[in-house]
C-alpha cells in the first residue's frame, strides 16, 4: 500500500513536469509580459521596468526561467505576484479556501441528493417515477452551470432572501464567531446551490445506470433464489456492486474541483480561485498562473490516488500493485 502510493506519486512527477513546462511555454507565447502594460504608464521610468524585469528573471531565456521557477518550487517558494506584490502562496490561500468551501459544500449535497435518487430510479426502472426523474436529469445536464447561477442570482436579487456576492455582510466586524460562521454559510448558499443543481443530473444518471447494471447481473438471481427479501437484494447485493464505480468517480470529482467551480464563482461573485486566475491570466501575472495550474495538477493527482485507494479497499477484486 505505502509502496503503491509512493510509486504512483513518482509516476506523476514526469506528468507534472510536462504539464508545468507546457503551461510555461503557453504563457510565454503571449505577446509581451506583465511589464509591457506598465510601460504605458509615464510615471514609471523604463529603467525601473528593466530593473523589475531582471529582478523577476524575465529578461532571461524561457528555459532558464522555467528552471529558475522550478528551483523555487522545490524550496516551496511559489514566487511573488507581479500585480499584487505579495507572495503567490498568500494570494492563493486567500481564495483557495473559499473555492474549497464552495466545492465541498456542493459535492456533499450533490452526492446526498443524486445517489438516493439514482438508486430509487434504478428500482423503479420503466415506471413513471423513473421516466420523470430521468427527464429532469436531462434538463439538469443540459443547463449550463453559469445559466443556473444567473437564474439563481436573478431570483435571489428579486426576493432578497439571500445575500449575493462576497463572503461577509456589513455587520461582519462586530459579529461573534458563531454569527460569522452563519453569515459565511448564508453567502455560500447561492453559489453552493447553483453548483449543486448543476451537478445532480450527471451523477444521478451514472448512479442509475450502475445500479441497473448490477441489478441485471446473474448474482441477483442467486440472491432471490436463496430467499432474500427485495430490500436485501436491492440494498445489500445490487447497491454494494453499483457503488464501486461511483467511488472512482468520487476521486475524479475531487480532482476537477478548481475547474468546475470557476464559472459559477465568477457569475455569483464568490471570491474564489475563478476570478483570481481569470485576472492573473489576463494580466500575465506569470507566477500566479503557474501556481494555480500547479495546484490544479496536484489536486488531480491526489484525486486519482484517493480514488485508487478507495476502490482497492471497497472491491476485493482490485489489488494495488
Amino acid at each position: 500500500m505505502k509502496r503503491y502510493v509512493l510509486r504512483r506519486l513518482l509516476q506523476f512527477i514526469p506528468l507534472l513536469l510536462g504539464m508545468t513546462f507546457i503551461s510555461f511555454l503557453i504563457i510565454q507565447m503571449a505577446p509581451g509580459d506583465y511589464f509591457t502594460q506598465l510601460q504605458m504608464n509615464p510615471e514609471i521610468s523604463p529603467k525601473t521596468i528593466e530593473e523589475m524585469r531582471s529582478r523577476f528573471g524575465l529578461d532571461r531565456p524561457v528555459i532558464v526561467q522555467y528552471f529558475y521557477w522550478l528551483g523555487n518550487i522545490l524550496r516551496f517558494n511559489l514566487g511573488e505576484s507581479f500585480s499584487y506584490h505579495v507572495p503567490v502562496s498568500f494570494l492563493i490561500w486567500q481564495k483557495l479556501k473559499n473555492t474549497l468551501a464552495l466545492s465541498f459544500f456542493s459535492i456533499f449535497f450533490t452526492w446526498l441528493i443524486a445517489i438516493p435518487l439514482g438508486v430509487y430510479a434504478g428500482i423503479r426502472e420503466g415506471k413513471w417515477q423513473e421516466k420523470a426523474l430521468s427527464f429532469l436529469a436531462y434538463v439538469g445536464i443540459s443547463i449550463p452551470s453559469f445559466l443556473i447561477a444567473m437564474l439563481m442570482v436573478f431570483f435571489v436579487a428579486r426576493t432578497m432572501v439571500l445575500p449575493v456576492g462576497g463572503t461577509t455582510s456589513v455587520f461582519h466586524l462586530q459579529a461573534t464567531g458563531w454569527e460569522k460562521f452563519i453569515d459565511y454559510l448564508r453567502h455560500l448558499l447561492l453559489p453552493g446551490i447553483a453548483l449543486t443543481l448543476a451537478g445532480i443530473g450527471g451523477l444521478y444518471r451514472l448512479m442509475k445506470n450502475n445500479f441497473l447494471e448490477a441489478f441485471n447481473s446473474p448474482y441477483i438471481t442467486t440472491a432471490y433464489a436463496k430467499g432474500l427479501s427485495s430490500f436485501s437484494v436491492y440494498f445489500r447485493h445490487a447497491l454494494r456492486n453499483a457503488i464501486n464505480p461511483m467511488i472512482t468517480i468520487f476521486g475524479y470529482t475531487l480532482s476537477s474541483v478548481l475547474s468546475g467551480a470557476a464559472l459559477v464563482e465568477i457569475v455569483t461573485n464568490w471570491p474564489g480561485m475563478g476570478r483570481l486566475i481569470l485576472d492573473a491570466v489576463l494580466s500575465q501575472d506569470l507566477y500566479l498562473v503557474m501556481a494555480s495550474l500547479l495546484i490544479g495538477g496536484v489536486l488531480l493527482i491526489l484525486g486519482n490516488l484517493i480514488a485508487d485507494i478507495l476502490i482497492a479497499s471497497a472491491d476485493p477484486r482490485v489489488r494495488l500493485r
Partner: protein
Amino acid sequence: MDKALEIKRLEVSFIPAGKKRVKILRGVNLAIGKQESLALVGESGSGKTITARSVMRILPRSMYLESGEVLIDGTDVRKLTENDLMDMRGRLAGMIFQEPSSYLNPVFTAGSQIEEAIKDSEFNLGSSPLRGEDMVGVKARISRTERKKLVLKMLSEVGLKENVYYQYPHQLSGGMQQRVMIAMALINSPELLIADEPTTALDVTTAYGIIELLKKMMTRYGLSILFITHDISLAANFAQKIAVMYAGKIVETGPARDVFSNPLHPYTERLISCLPERYKTGERIKVIEGHVPDFNALPKGCAFHPRCPYKKEICLYKEPGEITKGTTTVMCFKYG
C-alpha cells in the same frame, strides 16, 4: 404427497418491450418423486431454464406465469404471497446455476454469502445430518456463532476447506465456486434441488467431481433433484428419469435407462444418435437437420415436424397428445 415436485400444464409468456407476447412454455407436465432425480434435456432455447425458474418464481421481469400449477411438496408456488415465496425459496427448494463465477456476488466472501441464506426460525427437520441432534426443533433466531458453525460444517460437507469461508469468489476455482453454490442451496436442507446446467461451464474432471458430489448429497439428504442439461448421456448417467423438452413442451418422459436405450420420440432418437461416442472413426459428424424453431413463428401442428423424418400428414396440422407406451410417455403420432 409422494411427489417432491409436480408441474401441471404450465404456461409461461414472454413480453418483450413494445412487442407481442410470445408463449414459451406451452403446457409443461412434469413430476419428480421423493428422493428421485429427473433430468430435463433439450437444445438451448427449448425452455428448460424457464421451467426451472418458474419453480422458484424467479423469472425475468418480462416473463409471466400464465396458467398451470407448480407444486413443491404439495404447495402451489403460484398461490404464495411475496413473503411466503421468500420463505419457500431456500427452505423448500434450492437452486444452482450454470456459471458459478457470475452467479456469486463478487464483493462478498463465500462464507457471508452462504450465511445470509440461512433461515431463522423453525428447525424441525431432524433428518438432516447437517444440524445434528442438538439443533432439532430449535426455533427463533440463530446466533452469529451458530450460523458460522453451520456454514463451516456445510463447507466440509461439500468438500471445501474452512478457509474458503473467508475467500472471495474470484479467489476460488470454478469447481470450488460451484461447491459454494451447492452449500448455499442446501444450507436449509430443502427437499428439492434445481440444478440448471451445473457442469456446463466446468472442465470435464471438475464436472465429474460436481456430479459425484450431487449424487452423494442426494442420498445423504434425501434430496430430489431437477437436473437440467443439454447432454442426454450425462442425463442418463446421472438421473433416474429423463424428460425431453422441445419448443416449450415435454415430448418424452420415462425412466432414464428406457429412454436412453429405446427412445420413442424422433427428437430423442436424433439427440442420442448425434452423441459423439456413438461414432466410428472416420464417420461424419451427425447433426439434427434444421433449426430450433423460433417461438415467434412456431410451425403448425407438431412443432418438430419440419425436422422430423417420420412426419405424416396429421403432424402438419394437429398437435399430438400424450401417449403412454410401456414405462414411457411420449407425444408423437408415430405411436397412434
